[in-house]
């Protein structure tokens, strides 16, 4: 209309014209590189899937496009023009509409009020605005009653309001972050129709998901991210099946990881029997999981993220209450024991969130080094600061942590050094069992190698290791036994030396029988 860019958008155009082009986007957060050389090319009139596992950088990448984050490097091209978005308002003005996972609606306002909030035309009366919103909704078969207050609406209806908001602001690129996670199957099907009608009218949709079937049925093209890097950009999804996508997401066999030498495993050191737990939202996330870990072996846990791995790790660490089952560490029953008691019993735990859970970001390296041991560093009422510092220096030296000053906040360290510090701290107590959740995620090559060799060394020293990872190569190379989790259950138990990546991928996608 007024913008020359819009003139080229014609109904039903699958003309291949590039609407959004993100080139070499890099976005770093303290300790983690979320995106590193991520590319995304979206054409007019297509539904474009953005695929990748949790932590692959999908949300960060679209937040760069949506003006939420300023990228550290890379270029944003929209309608053939380079842009710099300093705020979501800039992105909206350029025609980018975002529908976030958490809806941003005012519950007490009506549907049309939410839709026009902040961008209501100045010279129209209420009736005309309602009529326009209703017309817009009808055009895209987004069934809603414009006059109903939002608090009365179902989740699916609220999502439609979010989409309407973007359309009202004339978004020609709509970004949906895991849109079907909250929908019933029928609502998801309706959403698919709506998106298709938008694409048919020349708009573009960026569809973030890791539900592969859905992507295959809804989307035209795809971009696959792994560890913040774009690894595949199929122009067409015809002829591609689920396991192909799964393999793109988890990666080809890349760097060689030295397989540890075979050694006989010892007694069972960690035994989970029928363990169940709830997710943060109070829904069942773990169903009756049985896992044994023996001394001197690495048990790998694979799975598309969100299938109970996080809950499993937290349940073992004592950070998440279990609703059923028992846990034993060597001879001791640790079901219901406190995190501290488990640590004393010989459990080392490297949590998925190394900064924020494993380490306190604003506290110093010394303070973080003694999290597990400060109670033994007391001299009468006082904390023996010299002993803390000595302990920290030994730890830093032994595990090769590169630190400036030990009294600097730990958030100044790089991701690899954070993980060395965290792992080192957990290992100094000579644990019997090590539970490591995503220990190498987001690290550079040197960091990954250092962490992996530490884990292997622990195995050699007779520690039972439960390694939860999304890196299939790592799991296949390091594990003595492999467990695949799907929807909170152990879906398969495999021998990593006998199994192919495709078989593991199928089990991760829920198609194999346990």
């Amino acid at each position, binding site marked *: *209309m*007024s*913008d020359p860019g*819009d*003139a080229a*958008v*014609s*109904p039903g155009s699958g003309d291949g014209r590039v609407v959004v082009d993100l080139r070499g986007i890099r976005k770093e957060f*303290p300790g983690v590189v979320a995106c590193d050389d991520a590319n995304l090319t979206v054409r007019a009139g297509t539904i474009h899937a953005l695929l990748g596992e949790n932590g692959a950088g999908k949300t960060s990448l679209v937040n760069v496009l949506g003006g939420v984050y300023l990228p550290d490097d890379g*270029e944003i091209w929209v309608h*053939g*023009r*380079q*842009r*710099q978005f*300093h705020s979501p*308002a800039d992105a*909206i*003005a*350029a*025609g980018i509409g975002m529908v976030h996972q958490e809806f941003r609606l005012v519950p007490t306002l009506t549907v049309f009020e939410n839709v026009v909030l902040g*961008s209501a*035309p100045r010279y129209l009366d209420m009736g005309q605005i309602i009529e*326009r919103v209703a*017309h*817009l909704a009808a*055009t895209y078969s987004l069934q809603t009653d414009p006059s109903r207050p939002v608090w009365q609406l179902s989740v699916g209806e609220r999502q439609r309001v979010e989409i309407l908001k973007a359309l009202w*602001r*004339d978004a*020609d690129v709509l970004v949906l972050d895991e849109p079907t996670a909250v929908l019933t199957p029928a609502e998801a099907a309706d959403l698919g129709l709506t998106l298709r009608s938008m694409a048919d*009218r*020349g708009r573009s949709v960026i569809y973030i998901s890791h539900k592969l079937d859905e992507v295959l049925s809804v989307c035209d093209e795809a971009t696959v991210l792994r560890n913040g890097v774009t690894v595949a950009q199929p122009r067409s999804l015809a002829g591609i099946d689920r396991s192909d996508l799964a393999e793109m997401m988890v990666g080809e066999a890349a760097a060689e990881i030295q397989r540890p030498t075979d050694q006989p495993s010892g007694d069972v050191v960690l035994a989970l029997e029928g363990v169940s737990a709830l997710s943060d939202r109070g829904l069942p996330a773990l169903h009756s999981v049985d896992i044994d870990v023996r001394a001197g072996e690495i048990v790998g846990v694979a799975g598309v993220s969100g299938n109970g791995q996080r809950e499993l790790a937290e349940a073992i660490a004592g*950070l998440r209450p279990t609703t059923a089952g028992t846990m034993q560490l060597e001879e001791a029953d640790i079901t219901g024991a406190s*995190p*501290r008691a488990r*640590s004393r019993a010989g459990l080392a*735990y490297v*949590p998925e*969130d190394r900064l*924020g*859970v*494993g*380490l*306190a*970001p*604003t*506290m110093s390296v010394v*303070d973080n080094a003694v*999290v*597990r041991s*400060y*109670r033994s*560093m*007391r001299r009468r009422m*006082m*904390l023996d*600061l010299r002993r803390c510092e000595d302990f920290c220096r030994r730890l830093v030296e032994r595990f090769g942590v590169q630190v400036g000053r030990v009294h600097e*906040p730990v*958030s*100044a360290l790089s991701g690899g050094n954070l993980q060395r510090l965290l792992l080192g701290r957990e290992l100094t107590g000579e644990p019997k069992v090590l539970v490591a959740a995503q220990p190498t995620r987001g690290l550079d090559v040197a960091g990954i190698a250092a962490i992996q060799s530490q884990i292997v060394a622990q195995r050699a020293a007779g520690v039972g290791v439960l390694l939860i990872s999304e890196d299939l190569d790592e799991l296949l190379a390091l594990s003595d036994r492999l467990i695949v989790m799907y929807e909170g259950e152990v879906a398969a138990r495999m021998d990593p030396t006998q199994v192919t990546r495709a078989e593991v991928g199928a089990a991760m996608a829920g198609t194999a029988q346990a």
Partner: protein
Amino acid sequence: MTEPTHAPLHTVARGRARWHRVIVRPVLQRRARVAPAAQAIAFVIGIVLALIAGAMLLWGSGNDPVAVYERMAESSLGGFDALSRTLLRATPLAIAGLAVAVAGSMGLWNIGAEGQMMAGATVAAGFAMVAGDLPGPVLIVLMLVAGAVGGVVLVVGPALARAYLGVSEIITTLMLVEVAIRIVEWLKVGPWKDPESFGFAQISPLPDQASLPGLFGQVHIGVLFAAALLLAFWLAVSRTAWGYELRMAGSSPATARYAGISLQRKVLTALLLSGGLAGLAGAIELTGTATRLEPGLSSGYGFAGIIVAALALMRPSGVAVVAFVFGAVLRGGQSIQTLGVTSSIATILQAMILIGALVAAVLLNYRVRWVRPVGSGTDADATENPASAGASGV
């Protein structure tokens, strides 16, 4: 064409967005870390800028700024007597500020220190009524203990509700301020009314021996208590396992939980300690400056403690400095009224100085980056020829 269903709203937005394609504009960026020295400098700069703005206010209201500032400095810092008057005000500010900072270091806001001061003073005064014939030193020590108990009593409800039910301590502590003050008002006209004051409603005076010994000039030994408390808290936080756990729980609750620290117990102890300190501040104010309990005894020191703690970034060393400066500002603001500066202008001046310091402290957390956007120039030349993006840290 997209659907002609409604006016192209984006034209307005795009039109507005155009100006910053041309102009290099500042972007605020949060700093990862702020050096303590920079904090002190920013604090001073903020005050100086406020004084300059204040000079205009004074000049506009018909006063001579130079004379006024001279009097302010003279009366608060010039000599022992002036200093003693500043310290007299800094004492309750420091203890109340410390009280707020103790809770603040756990990420909690004890907004009701004012009420806990009143509660402390009330319990201390009540104790003096019951045990008024004890010898001075014993009576005073017991009154201070009673004061701390009073503060704890007022905060125990909010603390439990916060620790175990997640009820916001901000609201509960604030509401109890009114309760504490109204109770004193009721005592004044009711059970504790002085029978010897004839028709005039006031609470019976404290026994003579229940007043804190003076130190020099106007100031009493309460200032030493304040210094000792600040030192003790600094030691406790930085040198003890208890303080380590407190810092851990305050800065990263998830890590604390992971380390096996009970967050609920830490919330409880921080709030109770905060209330106890505020109660102690009330008792010190009562025994140090007053002859009897009055509803206006705490005179805003408890609320001012919030400002002190915030400016001090919840650190004990900062509390000492800020309380002293705040005390000087209060003393100076009072003295300039003898020059004919009306009390409202004096109050505005005080507020400006504090706001200046506060704004400087907050802004210090950010760095200004000047960003020259890509494609600067007109739309036409921006299409295929992006100018290089320029961003420089300042």
